[in-house]
């Protein structure tokens, strides 16, 4: 008997006018594992993320989250912010989207807005500085510093996020997403622009999050050093179709995948 997966994608299709960006995509994402989505540019990977996290409404199909507390949630029926708040699906962006003039620490505190806002009772308890709110703030601060320390960012806590280097900003975005306490973390090319040491650290972090914290991780990535080392399963997209699915070993030997990445055999022969 197989456990129910954390997230189920059923026959997802997304059309923009005449263009079909995603075509009948089905996928199961388990908790505690890393699932990678790979594919050439324009394969529909980011569109898939946008459908998943409520930024697009899919034309056909459903995205179902099996939430341990809230039960079965259909993500494409939720408002964008409720996908993160209620269903625990939090994403990062391909082009980093931090709050650039706010400090790193503030970025992480904003991520805990819903918890803090609840504790501040429509800002009244916060304005009066009541104990309940102060405690919630301490806890939020502790959570933020824990993740900052884990990701080696603690020295930069008081610096405006926009002033930091690209690799550091990527890590901040992950730390910020973690502060929302996601069940499923969707990372859109987190290794882009990282140097080899940074991407090795990223590998280690992804394994740590999935193994130790039991978080489901959905990863879009072009860097095969990351994908092949951390993935438990890989889904390959090309022109919106799923062309292969399996473990890293299976994917590396799949003829369809090789064809999509390296082109048809005739072309290879012709160029050889």
């Amino acid at each position, binding site marked *: 008997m197989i456990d129910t997966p954390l997230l189920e994608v059923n026959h997802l299709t997304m059309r923009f006018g005449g263009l079909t960006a995603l075509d009948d995509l089905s996928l199961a994402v388990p908790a505690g594992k890393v699932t990678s989505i790979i594919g050439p540019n324009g394969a529909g990977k980011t569109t898939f993320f946008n459908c998943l*996290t*409520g*930024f697009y409404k899919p034309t056909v199909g459903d995205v179902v989250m099996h939430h341990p507390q809230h039960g079965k949630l259909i993500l494409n029926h939720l*408002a*964008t*912010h*409720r*996908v*993160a*708040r*209620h269903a625990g699906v*939090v*994403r*990062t*962006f391909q082009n980093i*989207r*931090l*709050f*650039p*003039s*706010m*400090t790193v*620490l*503030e970025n992480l*505190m*904003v*991520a*805990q*807005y*819903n918890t*803090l*806002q609840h504790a*501040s009772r429509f*800002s009244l308890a*916060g*304005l009066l500085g009541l104990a309940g709110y102060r405690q919630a703030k301490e806890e939020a*601060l502790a959570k933020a*510093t824990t993740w900052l320390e884990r990701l080696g960012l*603690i*020295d*930069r*806590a*008081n*610096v*405006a996020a926009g*002033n*930091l280097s690209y690799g550091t900003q990527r890590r901040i975005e992950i730390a*910020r*997403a973690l502060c*929302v306490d996601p069940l499923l973390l969707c990372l859109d090319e987190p290794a882009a622009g990282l140097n080899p040491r940074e991407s090795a650290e990223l590998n280690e972090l992804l394994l740590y999050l999935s193994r130790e914290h039991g978080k489901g991780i959905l990863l879009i990535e072009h860097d095969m050093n990351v994908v092949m080392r951390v993935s438990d399963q890989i889904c390959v997209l090309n022109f919106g179709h799923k062309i292969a699915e399996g473990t890293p070993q299976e994917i590396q030997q799949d003829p369809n995948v090789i064809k999509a990445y390296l082109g048809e055999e005739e072309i290879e022969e012709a160029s050889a």
Partner: protein
Amino acid sequence: MSAHAAQQSAGMALADKLKDALRIGLVALLLGIPMLGLTTVDQGGGLQVMTRWPLLAQFVGVVFFGRLILQWLVGHFHLRKLQRQRVAAKTAVVQERPWLKWLGAVALAFAVALPVAFSGNRYVIDIATTVLIYVMLGWGLNVVVGLAGLLDLGYVAFYAVGAYSYGLLSTLFGWGFWETLPVAGGMAALFGLLLGWPTLRLRGDYLAIVTLGFGEIIRIILVNWTDFSGGPNGINSIPRPSFFGLEFKPPGDTPTFASFFHLEYSADHRVVFLYYVILVLALLTHVFVSRLRRLPVGMAWEAVREDELACKALGINVTGVKLSAYAIGAMLGGFAGVFFAARQGFISPESFVFSESATILAIVVLGGRGSQLGVVFAALLLVVLPELGRDFSDYRMLLFGAAMVLIMVWRPGGLVARREPTIQIETAAVQGATP
């Protein structure tokens, strides 16, 4: 327009600058021939055309050298700005700025002592009261524009709602100043939500146009709905606030402020009292807004200004955050409106025209978006500068405009452009910024 063009041309070579100045000089010459070079003189019943070439030559010369000096100034400031940015990039770590706090404390002490220092000088206290009204309006609009980043060109509408709430409630139902204050604030907040709701999806220019329209709607309703608002005649004889029930008026049957404290009656008492009322209101606004900024809702305002999509991805309800900014900004504007009505004793739609909105927005932008202290300096500048210019009567607005342009060239981010973090932790590397 000219500031923008000038900034682009900053850092040109000398030859380019000369060429530019020559071109401007040529334009001045062409314009000047009909306007200055030729003149008509009335000579015995007929008009005769005379020439004034020396005057024209002077004019062209002034324009030519003026342009050169302007170029030099702009280039100079631009270089300084670049240097500052380089320095700022090196020390990216946020630093404490103790002198700003000191400046704030000095300003507060001065504000408290002002009526004593200028006792009997009603003019100064009146101006100071006006400054404080604008400071309060600036702080209110700062929530919407500075923190939440929603460009609002119709802010004066909420000021009007507050003023008319007090005007109508006091003249029709005999409400006092202090009872009306929260009610009028609530009314203004309600109008803030009313404006906010349809504009949630709009941003930037489009939002500015809609808010501009909203401001005009309120004003036009006030002008035309004569039965309700008195139309263009406004509302007369609005009661003035009393000191805990003690009126400010010549001694009569009921105890007045002067008789209760055994003072000789003077009309200045009320002026000073009103000054302290607005000072207290403004300080409360300041404390309120600065505390809100450190609360989750304030941080969310700034986050929405920085990146709306990222907020949604983190589970923040952007609709709620924006509406709360509109409501709170509007409420503060409403409070200021109540005070305005109580101070003037007479209100009419003429006090709530678009140029008021523009002035308040200018205060926020000039002060530095999101900066509380910057708003104070900007309000001071925008109210006092035209007053100082009274001696120059005709050239007053010209000088005012020139001062504005110079300040924006000098400090494009506003007078206090630096953003203070809302929360900080001790880190080992705060001092050790990498050079």
